[in-house]
């Protein structure tokens, strides 16, 4: 990796090569940055200049082109100008035409000229393409060319494209004078092409013209123009059309995409007069040619600069490197420890200064080395001292941590170390206890003296160092015990060979708990450090003492806790047993007794239950056998108050008998006590009641065979056990109760569910056989039996017959089905008694044929449930079983309920069957009726038409003249025949309606015409009765859409009825519009209709009363049919009437019926 520096003889270490590279690179870098910047500036300005120049040139070209086009247009205007003076229009036609022809000659761009007079009429048209026209008078008065020109004097039309291809423009110029008119010139703009192609700009520059809408008018490529190219999307065109004022020349030439997608410089000039725009564009590539040259030049310059810089850099770097290397070598020698080395440099610059600096530094270093060595020695000493102390301290701490339970080793260690570190002869620790200091640890002192001191504690009021420390609570130093006036124990000091001594207090919080003293047989001083050391030893001693005290306390607490834990465990064991065995008491009692005797250190115990006025021993533990037997055979009555047990029963509080032999009960020879003492060797015992809400339910007794009382804690514990036992007893009772209730409930729910399912199944069908089958199947299922059957009772024959069977097998079913069972059977008996009847063992009744069959099929028992309806016996439900015996009461109840439900289901099914049958019959009848009516009407109509036809012919005299009488008869035949025909037609309509074959044909109609035709048809009838028929049709009724023929039929029917039932007065037929509905109202002055009849009249075959029907005739079907027709139109028919005054029938139908409807 070592770079080769030119022709370097030896490879240099890497960092040195880097410097060389750095120099060269920075040199090259600076030069190239400068060159690059200058190139960029040059390029930028050159670009700006090029753009500005280009913009100016292009813009001026564009302006020039715009001017030329303007000139082109104004030349045309000027030429036309001579045909616009005032007298011209009044000149001779030949003259005018001549002038126009001359214009065409002079201006090749004009294709057509038109002279229009002041009124906008064409006077003359001269064209290159079409025939000239004189005074055609064509109307231009509404033509924009005329109108605009009249307003503006001169008007340029928007550019248009002839045959969608050639760009044209109309110039319209008003002629001078009054009523002068306009001259129109159609100008072919293709001729501008010359102007546009005339503009050349470099190699690829070109110009084109667009109109105000952005369509291309002129372009060197004429085909673009002919193609009617839309330029409005080009940005330059958009900009020209929107920006009215262009500020600087540079902005006038923008870089935009051209029509063919290339980038171009585009300049624009507007032709204000025409709102056209001339664009001059040069391809960007071409326009920026000079700029590219500049860039190339800059690139070359940059390359050259780099070369020069690299060369210069190499030379410079080599020159710089020589002194630097000398410096580096010097530094290396200094670094290697040769401080005497001196660097020789004579360059006379900063490098030489640097070399001198190195030399000075070498001198200084030599000097400072000697100082440093001394200082190091001092520090080493200090450090070793500190280390010694530290070690001592940690030694003490080690001892402390090793002996947590004892103080002595700690104190021994402390005195030993204190002696050593203070360079003293001996050291002692005295602990303060009972008002004096007792020697606890000593080191270095003579055994005699130590022994003496151990025997003689130092009181706090003596003139001793210890007392002094005790009072002053701080370290005390006695320089010479023998020479100190305040020191009282001089004798002792002498005996102990003590002159100087130093003591520090052992402080626990603010109390002095002891002293640590070091002693020396010479008179000497102790350093502050030694005092500090002693103080820290004193602190450590206190810590050790405290530790031991705390340790002892913890030990004590732990013992207590263990005891409490044991009791707690016992309690929880008992609770565990209670929860584990919720239904059983024995394990609970055993557990309680076991725990109680164990904890209370009693050899045995008994648990009594209070029952039937006495206490019974229910559980025992370790009771001596003879006493146990006694207790079991002798329940204890409550009356005895002398024994402990008796007292508990009386007071319901725990009783402790300390000595069974000592109290009255034993003295009086109460049997229980005697038994206890003599059979159980009982001396001390504790009896605790078990209470449930203050009622005694039992008792708990534990016994000791020695006189030793129970502690309150033990009593408390046994009381707790007793209450747990009570809880357990109560729990068991409640649990049993709950279980019993749950079992009952579950059973009921099961039954209800079964019943629910059954009734759902039974009621899910109305088919009678299915119902019966379901009932019997479900009955067998819910009763848990094997087979069953349903017998239905026939009232008529007075016998039961099997109708449904389940589980019996086909063979038996077949046999049973044929059995007719009379009322003297068990079935009959059950029906009579209306209660279930059981046969517990069929073999006892086997003499009856039916039962014999069953016995042979293997059945042993059955139950009959009579099915009884509200008024009669329906039958019976029988279930059978293969086992003999009575059916459980629960099954009987359940089946009874079920039988009652089944009765309802059977009846429902029967009723439904009947209804269905009836409906079927009715439907058939109705069908027959409609069919019959339709057929009959048809069959009747044909002969009747013949009858009427012949009658007509006869009346017309086709068969010869008839006599007056015959004429009269014939008239009657015709009247009655026509009535009959009407009747038949109505019936036919009605039957069609009922058969759903009646349709309406929707088409437009006029209400007025409809009313008119009805009036025309009924007028003669009305006039023969002397009635006035008044149509009242509102004017301007719109035409409606609907079935005109049918609606006419409706109106005819209503009007006909009105005439028929009205004897005098008038009938008004009104028609008006109400919103989107027509309302037709027929008002008569007839007898009116009673309110109770008003609804009926629209029913089939209904007339108001029979007498009038007879009088008036009619089928009674007309209004029914009318109602149907109106309803099929989505309308309604109604009647308002006051009896005796007349009626109004109102028909409302929508004006437009949208769809064809079929009668329902």
């Amino acid at each position, binding site marked *: 990796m070592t770079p080769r520096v030119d022709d370097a003889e030896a490879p240099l270490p890497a960092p040195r090569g880097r410097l060389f590279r750095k120099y060269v690179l920075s040199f090259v870098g600076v030069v190239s940055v400068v060159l690059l910047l200058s190139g960029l500036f040059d390029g930028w300005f050159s670009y700006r200049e090029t753009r500005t120049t280009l913009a100016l040139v292009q813009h001026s070209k564009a302006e020039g082109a715009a001017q030329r086009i303007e000139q082109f247009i104004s030349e045309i205007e000027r030429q036309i100008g001579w045909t616009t003076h005032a007298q011209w229009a009044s000149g001779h036609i030949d003259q005018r035409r*001549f002038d126009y022809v001359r214009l065409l000659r002079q201006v090749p761009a004009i294709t057509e000229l038109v002279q229009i007079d002041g009124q906008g009429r064409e006077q003359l048209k001269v064209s290159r*393409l079409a*025939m*000239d026209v004189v005074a055609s008078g064509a109307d231009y008065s509404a033509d924009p060319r005329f109108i605009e020109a009249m307003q503006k004097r001169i008007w340029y039309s928007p550019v248009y494209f*002839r045959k969608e*291809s050639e760009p044209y423009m109309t110039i319209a110029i008003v002629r001078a004078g009054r009523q002068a008119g306009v001259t129109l010139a159609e100008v072919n703009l*293709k001729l501008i092409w010359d102007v546009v192609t005339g503009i050349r700009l470099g190699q690829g520059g070109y110009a084109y013209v667009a109109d105000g809408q952005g369509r291309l008018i002129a372009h060197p490529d004429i085909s673009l123009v002919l*193609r009617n190219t839309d330029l409005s999307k080009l940005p330059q065109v958009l900009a020209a059309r929107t920006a009215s004022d262009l500020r600087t020349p540079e902005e006038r030439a923008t870089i935009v995409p051209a029509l063919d997608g290339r980038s171009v410089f585009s300049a624009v000039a507007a032709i204000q007069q025409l709102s056209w725009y001339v664009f001059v564009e040069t391809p960007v590539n071409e326009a920026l040619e000079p700029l590219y040259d500049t860039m190339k030049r800059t690139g070359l310059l940059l390359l050259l600069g780099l070369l020069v810089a690299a060369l210069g850099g190499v030379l410079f770097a080599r020159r710089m490197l020589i002194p630097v290397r000398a410096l580096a070598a010097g530094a290396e020698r200094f670094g290697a420890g040769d401080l005497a080395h001196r660097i020789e440099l004579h360059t006379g610059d900063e490098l030489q200064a640097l070399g001198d600096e190195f030399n000075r530094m070498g001198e200084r270093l030599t000097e400072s080395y000697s100082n440093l060595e001394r200082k190091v020695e001092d520090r080493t000493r200090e450090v070793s001292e500190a280390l010694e102390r530290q070690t001592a301290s940690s030694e003490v701490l080690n001892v402390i941590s090793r002996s947590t339970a004892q103080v002595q080793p700690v104190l021994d260690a402390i005195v030993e170390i204190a002696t050593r570190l203070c360079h003293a002869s001996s050291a002692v620790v005295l602990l303060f206890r009972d008002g004096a200091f007792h020697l606890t640890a000593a080191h270095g002192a003579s055994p005699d003296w130590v022994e003496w001191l151990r025997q003689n504690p130092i009181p706090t009021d003596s003139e001793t160092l210890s007392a002094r420390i005790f009072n002053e609570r701080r370290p005390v130093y006695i320089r010479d015990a023998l020479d100190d006036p305040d020191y009282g124990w001089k004798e002792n000091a002498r005996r102990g060979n003590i002159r100087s001594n130093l003591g520090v207090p052992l402080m626990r919080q603010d109390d002095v708990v002891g002293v640590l003293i070091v002693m020396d047989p010479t008179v000497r001083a102790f350093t502050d450090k030694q005092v500090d050391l002693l103080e820290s030893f004193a602190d450590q001693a206190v810590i050790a003492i405290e530790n031991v005290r705390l340790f002892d306390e913890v030990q004590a607490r732990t013992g207590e806790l263990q005891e409490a834990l044991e009791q707690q465990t016992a309690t929880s064991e008992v609770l565990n047993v209670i929860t584990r065995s919720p239904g059983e008491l024995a394990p609970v009692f055993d557990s309680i007794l076991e725990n109680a005797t164990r904890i209370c250190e009693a050899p045995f115990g008994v648990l009594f239950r209070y029952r039937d006025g006495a206490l019974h021993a229910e559980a025992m533990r370790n009771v001596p056998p003879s006493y146990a037997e006694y207790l079991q055979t002798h329940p204890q009555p409550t009356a005895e108050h002398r024994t402990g047990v008796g007292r508990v029963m009386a007071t319901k509080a725990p009783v402790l008998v300390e000595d069974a032999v000592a109290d009255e009960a034993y003295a009086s020879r109460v049997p229980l006590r005697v038994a206890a003492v003599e059979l159980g060797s009982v001396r001390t015992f504790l009896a605790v009641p078990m209470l449930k809400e203050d009622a005694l339910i039992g008792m708990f007794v534990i016994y000791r065979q020695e006189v030793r009382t129970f502690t309150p804690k033990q009593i408390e514990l046994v009381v707790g056990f007793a209450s747990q036992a009570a809880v357990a007893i109560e729990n068991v009772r409640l649990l049993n109760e709950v279980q019993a209730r749950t079992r009952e409930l579950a059973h009921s729910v099961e039954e209800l569910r079964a019943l629910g399912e059954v009734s759902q199944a039974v009621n899910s069908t109305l088919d009678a056989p299915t119902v019966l089958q379901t009932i019997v199947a479900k009955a067998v299922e819910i009763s848990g039996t094997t087979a069953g059957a349903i017998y239905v009772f026939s009232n008529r024959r007075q016998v039961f017959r099997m109708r449904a069977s389940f589980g019996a097998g086909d063979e038996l079913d077949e046999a049973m089905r044929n059995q007719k069972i009379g009322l003297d059977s068990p079935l009959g008996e059950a029906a009579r008694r209306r209660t279930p009847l059981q046969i517990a063992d069929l073999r006892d009744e086997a003499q009856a044929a039916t039962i014999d069959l069953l016995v042979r099929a293997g059945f042993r028992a059955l139950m009959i449930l009579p099915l009884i309806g509200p008024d009669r016996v329906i039958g019976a439900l029988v279930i059978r079983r293969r086992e003999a015996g009575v059916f459980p009461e629960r099954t009987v109840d359940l089946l009874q309920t079920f039988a009652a439900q089944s009765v309802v289901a059977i009846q429902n099914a029967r009723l439904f069957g009947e209804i269905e049958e009836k409906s079927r019959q009715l439907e058939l009848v109705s069908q027959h009726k409609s069919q019959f009516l339709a057929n009959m009407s048809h069959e009747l109509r044909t002969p009747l038409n013949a009858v009427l036809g012949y009658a007509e012919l006869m009346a017309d005299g086709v068969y010869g003249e008839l006599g007056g009488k015959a004429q009269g008869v014939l008239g009657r035949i015709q009247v009655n025949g026509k009535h009959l025909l009407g009747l038949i037609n109505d019936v036919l309509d009605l039957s069609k309606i009922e058969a759903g074959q009646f349709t309406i044909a929707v088409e437009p109609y006029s209400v007025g015409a409809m009313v008119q035709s009805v009036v025309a048809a009924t007028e003669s009838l009305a006039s023969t009765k002397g009635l006035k028929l008044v149509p009242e049709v509102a004017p301007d009724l719109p035409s409606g859409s609907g079935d005109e023929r049918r609606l006419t039929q409706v109106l005819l029917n209503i009007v006909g009825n009105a005439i028929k039932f009205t004897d005098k007065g008038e009938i008004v037929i009104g028609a008006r519009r109400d919103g989107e509905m027509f309302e037709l109202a027929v008002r008569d002055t007839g007898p009116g209709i009673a309110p109770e009849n008003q609804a009926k009249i629209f029913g089939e075959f209904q007339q108001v009363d029979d007498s009038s029907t007879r009088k008036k005739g009619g089928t009674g079907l007309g209004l029914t049919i009318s109602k149907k027709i109106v309803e099929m139109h989505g309308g309604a028919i109604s009647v308002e009437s006051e009896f005796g005054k007349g009626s109004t029938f109102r028909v409302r139908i929508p004006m437009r019926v949208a769809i064809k409807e079929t009668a329902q």
Partner: protein
Amino acid sequence: MVKLRRRPLVLAAFALAAGRESVAQERVARIGLLRAPPQQPRDLASLTAGLAELGHIVGRNLEIVARYGDGDVRRMPALAREIAALSPALVVVDGEPSALAMSEAAPKLPIIFTLVGDPVAQGYAKSLSHPGGNMTGLTNIALEITGKRLSLLLEAVPTIRRIAILIQPRPGVPLLRDEIIAAAAQLGLAATIFEASAPSDIDPVFDRIAAAAPDAIVTINAPLFYGERQRIVARANALARPQIYPEREFVEAGGFMSYGVDFDVLWRRAASYVDRILKGAKPGDLPIEQPVKLLFSVNSTTAHKLGIELPPAILLRADEIIE
């Protein structure tokens, strides 16, 4: 030393450039030319001049295979097939007979027409601005200016009442015939149609025209008549009746008047279509051009011979007066 080394490089570059030139020379575009009349050197000269202006020089990079029907339009299909067999890059045709024959012979070949009266009505193009198919070119708007022609004749000689109309039956003619009959009716002229299909029909037709003795003779655009213009003008002048023709070439040949497109301009413009299609443009994208200028030519000598004094308006209107 450097100079010496560079020299062969320069020479090589020259050689390369020369080689490229020779390659370009070898690449010759072949185009077809199908015309119904006999060969017309002046029209051909206009076309080749137009092509040369655009860099297509016959004999260097362009070959024109030309077929002429000698006035008989029935020969066109065969000639068209001949051209198609040579598979040119495109075919330049004149009027409807050539256009129709060519498009049938080579339905996909680009066709540039020059003398079609109404390309849209003929079904050659969807519209003038966007022809859409494989045919484009120039229209002589013959249909549109038919009425104008009659009215100019009438203006020059207002006494005319009955006219003979000379027609060559061919594709496109039905439209023209309808147009001229309508225009004649509009101007109150009685028109009789005379048809000639081949050069051999010319004399008999003129015999019949002579027999009918019309006030004037109107010749409709047709390849036959254009080719036989000398004979037609001679026969018409022999009848001493004023005439009007569709092209100034008739007037040059001694005919009375003409009104129509300038063939020189027309054929030169056709060259621009050739250029663009050779450079890859699709014929369907090139709009059909209408003539910018219509030439009204009058032969004053003939007028004098016919004893007609030209009204000032006619003289004013005339673009050229030939003597």
